[in-house]
């Protein structure tokens, strides 16, 4: 299985990939800028995401908002920011591909002349509302911030969350937006994928016409970070929640690095589906938890692995902590059964096929090509990505669990209802997040 493509690099450094899929008369445009919240500095957090909002506010040659012409053409569009990258996409009827390229290239080349103080102020308000809606006013919404801050030291680029801190958002200025754009939003720091009902040569001609004249920018230095120290941390966060919740967190391998697939498969074995070890024990048999989840959060510099569980009323977080630790110890001691691994592999293999169904949007083929291209420089990685999972055996999982999931290097967070810090696991220190 692969996603066939052709790749070209324009003189200004823009990487261009085209993938033809004539199944449906649509064209997907997917543009990544290799900048995210990890490029921010303490005191200026949230800027990469705030900047993403500004990219939808119009550019020099079409200054009436970014959505208008594309929605009127029957397109859908969106963007997102995470720690490592910012992506933008349009899915348009294939006869409207040129419009999408016109719009994307105009904001890559000519954003700043149209960027006003008024737009900046309004989008800052919108982002503050987004923060209230999705973090402050959402149960357990602040847990991720407390976890990142505990996993990484203050100067580590993963110490803060992508949405940023409120005082930093208030302190952000239009002048900083100009600087940020010049530093990161240029062809040499971008990767453009066009997928769908398109002709490769004609598409490349359009891309050259619209993007070829945009001047290259300054080189972007790779963000480095010292490996965060391993230590045990136990914290309690009070929140407006009915039920407490336990978060166990460990440092884990970086995206696509050795051990990443193992940790991903471990998360599946532990908590995906009724037959997974933790669901079966805690939710199905003992009925001590209402839910349990596990995930390998793969990121460019380093990852973190999480197990999250919510006890039913009457069960303590300490009981869940013991049960989860015990199950992880059993994997370290004796490894998973071959039949468990087979089951997880079957799901992984099917999921790779399901990933081929759509050309555009978040997670579509265009987005996948960009992920492989930007993070690995190898858009052809689809097959090898899958192969990483299929080669995994019992000993690999045992070794990965043993190496990464020890108690001594774990950040344990109890989220408890306001006024009930006594519900946290033992020896937890209070933490505040705002």
């Amino acid at each position, binding site marked *: 299985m692969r996603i066939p493509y052709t790749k070209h690099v324009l003189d200004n450094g823009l990487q261009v990939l085209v993938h033809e899929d004539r199944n449906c*008369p649509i064209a997907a445009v997917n543009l990544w800028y290799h900048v995210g919240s990890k490029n921010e500095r303490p005191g200026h957090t949230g800027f990469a995401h705030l900047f993403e909002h500004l990219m939808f506010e119009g550019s020099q040659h079409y200054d009436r908002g970014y959505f208008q012409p594309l929605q009127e053409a029957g397109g859908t569009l969106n963007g997102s920011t995470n720690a490592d990258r910012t992506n933008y996409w349009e899915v348009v009827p294939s006869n409207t591909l040129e419009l999408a390229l016109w719009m994307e290239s105009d904001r890559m080349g000519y954003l700043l002349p149209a960027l006003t103080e008024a737009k900046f102020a309004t989008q800052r308000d919108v982002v503050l509302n987004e923060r209230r809606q999705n973090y402050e*006013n959402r149960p357990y919404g602040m847990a991720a911030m407390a976890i990142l801050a505990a996993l990484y030291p203050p100067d580590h680029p993963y110490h803060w969350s992508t949405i940023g801190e409120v005082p930093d958002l208030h302190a952000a200025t239009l002048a900083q937006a100009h600087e940020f754009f010049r530093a990161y939003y240029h062809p040499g720091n971008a990767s453009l994928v066009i997928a769908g009902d398109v002709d490769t040569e004609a598409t490349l001609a359009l891309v050259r016409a619209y993007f070829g004249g945009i001047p290259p920018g300054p080189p972007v230095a790779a963000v480095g970070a010292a490996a965060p120290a391993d230590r045990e941390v136990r914290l309690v966060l009070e929140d407006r929640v009915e039920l407490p919740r336990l978060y166990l967190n460990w440092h884990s391998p970086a995206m696509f690095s050795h051990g990443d697939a193992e940790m991903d498969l471990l998360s599946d074995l532990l908590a995906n589906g009724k037959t997974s070890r933790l669901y079966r024990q805690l939710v*199905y048999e003992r009925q001590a938890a209402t839910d349990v989840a596990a995930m390998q959060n793969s990121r460019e510099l380093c990852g973190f692995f999480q197990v999250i569980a919510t006890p039913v009323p009457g069960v303590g977080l300490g009981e869940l902590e013991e049960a989860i630790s015990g199950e992880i110890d059993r994997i370290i001691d004796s490894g998973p059964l071959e039949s468990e691994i087979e089951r997880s592999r079957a799901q992984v293999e099917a999921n790779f096929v399901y990933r081929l169904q759509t050309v555009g949007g978040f997670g579509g083929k265009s987005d996948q090509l960009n992920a492989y291209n930007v993070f690995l420089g190898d858009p052809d990685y689809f097959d090898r990505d899958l192969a990483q999972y299929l080669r995994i055996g019992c000993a690999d999982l045992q070794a990965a669990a043993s190496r990464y999931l020890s108690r001594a290097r774990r950040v344990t967070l109890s989220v408890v209802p306001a006024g009930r810090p006594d519900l946290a696991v033992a020896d937890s220190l209070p933490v505040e997040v705002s």
Partner: protein
Amino acid sequence: MIADRSRLPAAGAAASVRLPAIHKTRLPNGLAVWTVEHRNVPVVCCLLVVPAGSAQDPPGLDGLASLAGDMLDEGTGDLSALGVSDRLARLGAQFETEIGVDATLVALTTLSHSLARGLALLADMTVRPRLAAEDFDRVRRLRLHRLTQLRDLPPFLAERAFARWIYGSHPYGHMPLGAEPTLQRMTVDDVRRYHRRVFVPDGSTLIVVGDGTHDALAAAVAEAFGGWQAAGDGHVPVDLPEPPDRLPSGRVALVNRPGAAQSELRIGQVAVARDTPDYHALLVLNTVLGGQFISRINMNLRQAKGFTYGARTVFDFRRHRGPFVFLTSVKSSVTGEALREAMAEIEAIRGGRPATPEEVRTAAAALTLGYGRNFETAPQVAQALSQLALYGLPDDYFEQFVPRVVAVTAPEVLRVAQQHLDPDRMALLVVGDRAVVEPALAALPYGAPTILPAD
């Protein structure tokens, strides 16, 4: 070529959209079988449409349809709940049950080489579920815990309170999830009775879309579902009463959430049913008013004022008259102003500032030019077909969609706005901090707010 930035480029010649070609057959037991060949990826989506949802919950048993849906994958024949989960995983299949007000949709997506095994499992789960007492107890307990957790979620509190506020005791007035007292009252026998009554072949439709010929897909269905026989007299959906036309009392309601970081807002009314002849005009109206990013309400509340991360409106078309709703979440300090602005936009589109021909043209373009996108994947095609099955829409529905939307005129949009939106009858609901928002609500011209309980 050289880029011309003096104007936006014109669209090229439109590519033809490939609409799904549906083959319809019927098994001797009455099950309608619809197949579509969709062959770009080796995947098949099987979607069983059972035309009964939470509106069929018997009085006092809110949540029964949904709990019965949750029980389908809790064991069948020799397979325990764990056995079902294990088999789904080893097939690499994706299984999902969705219980709406009018229907239960049971979807199984699988790799095409596993189709026969996938369909056999789907048949076992839907036709012959175990419905065992101990599984029922566990599933109900999980549901009760989930309801407890949902008390923390303002959008859920708003949705639940709003449905009850505008529909009262009508079957559309409760959430599919049910409520604590009704779930406590429920027994596994209720679930068994409901399953016997509702999960019958006659009246249900199995939609199969994917990598196979019509004949092969239909044959696989016949093999798996041919033995399905109704246990009782067959399905008799209970006829629903007409939804209420008037609000019980008052216009504004408040669910208090002390210290809330934002106010969750709803404005709306009981509106129209799916079979309205004004369906396409209402879609255009909604697109102008609040159906997409560039709609009036979002451009005003988000882009001009910065009150919110997003604001939108929706007509929820159902078998009987569904709601029209405006939804958003705003910073608490602008609660009153946001409600005022939203009401002003709704009122304006009924006459003061009706949709212009240009707005109507561009809304129709947004709805139609990208229509082909809705048929890209097998699950998307199956979802689209489920609407045809559920609401008895004609075979040429997809072919007619674009011309009918394009034919909508500005005067027609004005007419349907005046006919189906009635600001004088609309209810306004806030989930927010009473201490902060009550003075602002009292200042609105809709009378003193009624304080509603959170649950």
